[in-house]
Each structure stands twice: as C-alpha cells, then as structure tokens.
C-alpha cells in the first residue's frame, strides 16, 4: 500500500483531505517514523485509524458480525427451501427445478460463510431454522414467503456492503464475495417474483404480499423511494414514472430492520 499515493488520490476528490488530519506535519512525521522502523505491517492499521479520524466514521460493525448476520439469513433461507421441498407441493418440472437450484445456492452460501467465519477465527452461527409454525400450508403462500426472503436478502446484503470495504480473507475481498452473493439473491428474487406473475423488479406500487409479510418493502428507505443522492430521479432527463424510478434502484435495509420481529426476526425458530 502506497499511503502517499492514496493521500494524493484523495486530495484529487477532497481538496481538504490534509486539513482533515491532525496536521500535515504530524501525519508525515508519523509516516516517516513508520517507514524508518520498517514496520510496514503496522501501516494498514495506522492508515485505518488515520482515515477514521479524518472522516469521523464510527467503528464499523465487526466483519465477523456481518458475516454471521449474512449466515443467519442464509441458514433461514436454506431451511425454508428445505421445508418447501419436504412439503411436496412444488409442481414438477420448471418450478421444482428452480426451487432446487435456489436451495443449492443457499446451501453453498451457508458453507462459504461458515468456512470464512471459521477461517477468520470466529464462531459461525448454526442451527438457525425457519419457524415451523410460520411455514405456509399452501404452495402459493410458500412462494410469497420465498419472494419476501429473497427481496429482503438483497436489501440486507446491500446494507452491509459499506462494513466490508477493505475486509479481506487471505487474498479474497469479502466485499466482492458479498456482492457476488447479493446478485445471486437478486437473480433468485427476480425468478420467484416471475413465478408469482410479478414484475422481476420492484415497482413503487408493489405491496402485493399477504400478511404477515406487509413490512417487506418498508424501512427507513422504502422500496418506493425515488430520491437518490439527494435528487428526485423522476425529474432527471426526460422525466420518469415513480414506478420506473423506484424499480431502477433496490433499497437498503439495516441489520436492525432485517432482524426485527416484522421481518426475518419473526421467522426464525
């Protein structure tokens, strides 16, 4: 890592970057000392603390916590699809093929996240089950739950991306892996929605889920949101409908929102 180059690049986008540090002199003095000591291994930690100070970010949720949170959701999804297969109501042919493929992916995500938490010397979550008493009796409602789980999963991964910036497992970027799972969840969500005769994306008008799945598209930033980076996207360019503007962006859910009793928290055994 070339810290001087990083600061140089930062100064291109943030002219005030050096002013954000305690003082220019302190920074370069410390850097000089670090380099003299040859303590290159200490550099990343130093840089992290420097930037945290400069940009006032709070300590991010620990990486293990984020991975265990993702693992909890994957275990919930995996168990849900296992129950769905076991219930035996999925029609033969294309529907069974799709549900089996999705289950296979969720199991792969469980294994990947479990192995990663273990490799990082954490304790992986285990034993998370979909609440038996909440499992729907009919296939149509099972699919509605699948839609809720997948669309929530997409929002949950998105909500944690910021906490994984720079997080590595060996040479692997955990952020990239999380995003690679995130887009798979979005593919699942799109297909499940199609199986339910819904648009594969989420228009502003979408609220078509039976109780108790009502809050799925709500949150601090609702799925019908049309404001992005401070601009109303319906007013960009030629002007667009609220449905298109909302569908063009999937929104974030925080960890607290996902795990509260109205969403995944209410579905865990």
């Amino acid at each position, binding site marked *: 890592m070339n810290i001087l180059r990083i600061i140089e*690049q930062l100064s*291109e*986008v943030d002219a005030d970057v050096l002013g954000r540090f305690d003082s220019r002199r302190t920074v370069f003095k410390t850097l000089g000392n670090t380099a003299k000591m040859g303590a290159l291994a200490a550099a990343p930690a130093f840089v992290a603390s420097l930037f945290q100070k400069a940009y006032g*970010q709070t300590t991010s949720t620990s990486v293990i916590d984020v991975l265990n949170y993702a693992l909890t959701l994957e275990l919930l999804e995996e168990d849900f699809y296992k129950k769905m297969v076991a219930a035996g109501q999925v029609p033969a042919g*294309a529907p069974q*093929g*799709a549900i089996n*493929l*999705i289950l*296979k*992916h969720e*199991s*792969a*995500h469980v*294994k*990947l996240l479990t192995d990663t938490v273990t490799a990082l010397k954490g304790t992986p979550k285990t034993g998370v089950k979909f609440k038996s008493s909440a499992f729907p009796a009919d296939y149509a409602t099972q699919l509605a739950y699948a839609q809720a789980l997948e669309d929530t999963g*997409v929002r949950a*991964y*998105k909500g944690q*991306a*910021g906490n994984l*910036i720079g997080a590595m497992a060996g040479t692997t*970027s955990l*952020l*990239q892996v999380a*995003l*690679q*799972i*995130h*887009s*798979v*969840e*979005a*593919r*699942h*969500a*799109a*297909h499940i929605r*199609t199986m339910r005769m819904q*648009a*594969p*994306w989420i228009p502003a008008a979408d609220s078509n889920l039976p109780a108790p799945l009502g809050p799925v598209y709500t949150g601090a930033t609702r799925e019908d949101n049309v404001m*992005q*980076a401070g*601009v*109303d*996207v319906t007013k*960009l*360019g*030629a002007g*667009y*409908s609220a449905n*298109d*503007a909302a*569908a*063009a*962006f*999937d*929104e*974030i859910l925080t960890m607290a929102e996902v795990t509260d009793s109205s969403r995944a928290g209410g579905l865990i055994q």
Partner: protein
Amino acid sequence: MSEPLFSDSFLARTLRRRSFFRVVGATVATSTLLLAGCNDNTNPDPAPTTASLTLGSGDNGLLNYAYLLEQLEAAFYQKVVDAFPADFTAEDKAAFVDLRDHEVIHREFFRYALGTNAYDSGGTSITFDFSSFALTTRAGVYAAARTLEDTGVAAYNGAAKLIADTTTLRLLAKIASVEARHAAFVRDQVQPGSFAASDVVADSGDAAGLDTAKTPLEVVELIAKFVPATIVATSLPTS
C-alpha cells in the same frame, strides 16, 4: 461501420441537459445553462478519426465506468424499442420498455452524479455499434440482452471492491441488484429456468453459489466491439 462516431444531435442533447439542470441548485444551474447555451450556437467539432474515452481515476473513474456501461445498455434497449422484432409479443414489448426506462434512469443518474466529472461532459455522446448482434428476431434480441446484462452484473461485482467511498458503494449496489434482476429475466426468456444457471453462478468449487465478477479491464475488453473509440481504463483502481 455506417453510423457516425459521435452523435451530432445537439438539439436533443441540449433539451436533456436543460431538464436535467432544472433539478440542480439555482446557482449551478444558471452558470451551467450559460455554458449549455453556448453549445447551442457552436457547431460540433468534427468527429475525430481516432477517439479515446478516458474514464479517469479513483471513485470518479469507477463512476464513469458504470456510466459508460449504463449508456451502452440504455442505447441497446432504445434501439430495440425503436424497432421491435416482428415476433415480439405484447409482453416482450412492455418488458423492454421497462428495461429501457431503468437503464436510461441509471444513465441519467450517473450523468447527474458525475456532473462535470463525466468523461463526456464536453458535450459529445457516443453512438454505440450493435452490428455484432442480430436484432431482427426475438431470439436474437434476448440473446443480446443476456450478454449485456450478464456483463453488467459481473462488472458491478468486480468493481465494487475498488470503491473507496461508502456512499458511492451503496449507490452502485442499489443499481447492481437491479441489473441482476434484469439478467435473470432475460436469461429466463432465452432459456426457461436459466436465471442463475452454472454459466453465471458457479455450481461447485470455491466459488459455488457466487455470481460472476470481472475486473474493469476484462469488461472493457468485452465491450470494446460496441464502442467506436478506445476506452482508456488504465487509471482505474485495480485493488
């Protein structure tokens, strides 16, 4: 290639710029409209014989990269919507209007977010070359859409880790999953049930259950045939 290197429809572009700047703060809008107004009376520069698109460095470079991909997708869907294949159904047409709208919104959003940092903020816009696709049949159009959407998903997955700013990362992630929804949909239209098939989501091995990720340089190579200019992505972050 029969199409001009750069579109010279400055009238259309200026109208777009006007409505776009309406939403920006009044001070910025005033000064920029003056500039846009200058463009009205200026003949476009002659199209260069060899052109390059320089995406830049840092997060702005990555935003320019995403902007280029969204321009490409938007242009593709617009082309299809302008001349639907004869065998497109009413459902196909409705879906492609939705897809076009989403990609145009993504494009306009990046244009807004980048402002004068946009690689094309000088006023030229690209005319993409889709001659490598067969767009006269439903099958050809969906196969082309599948290629572009899968590339977009892989591009966002491979670029996200290079972003320094959390807010920028979140914005890209909000769009990335919509691209994955598009990809799943068009794949299902090409071959039912292929929304997450093993050519995009690994079946086994270390990457089992993971979608594809490609680096910006890999993606630039893949899209080069659509872009009538050399894309300079060498200053983008690589780690």
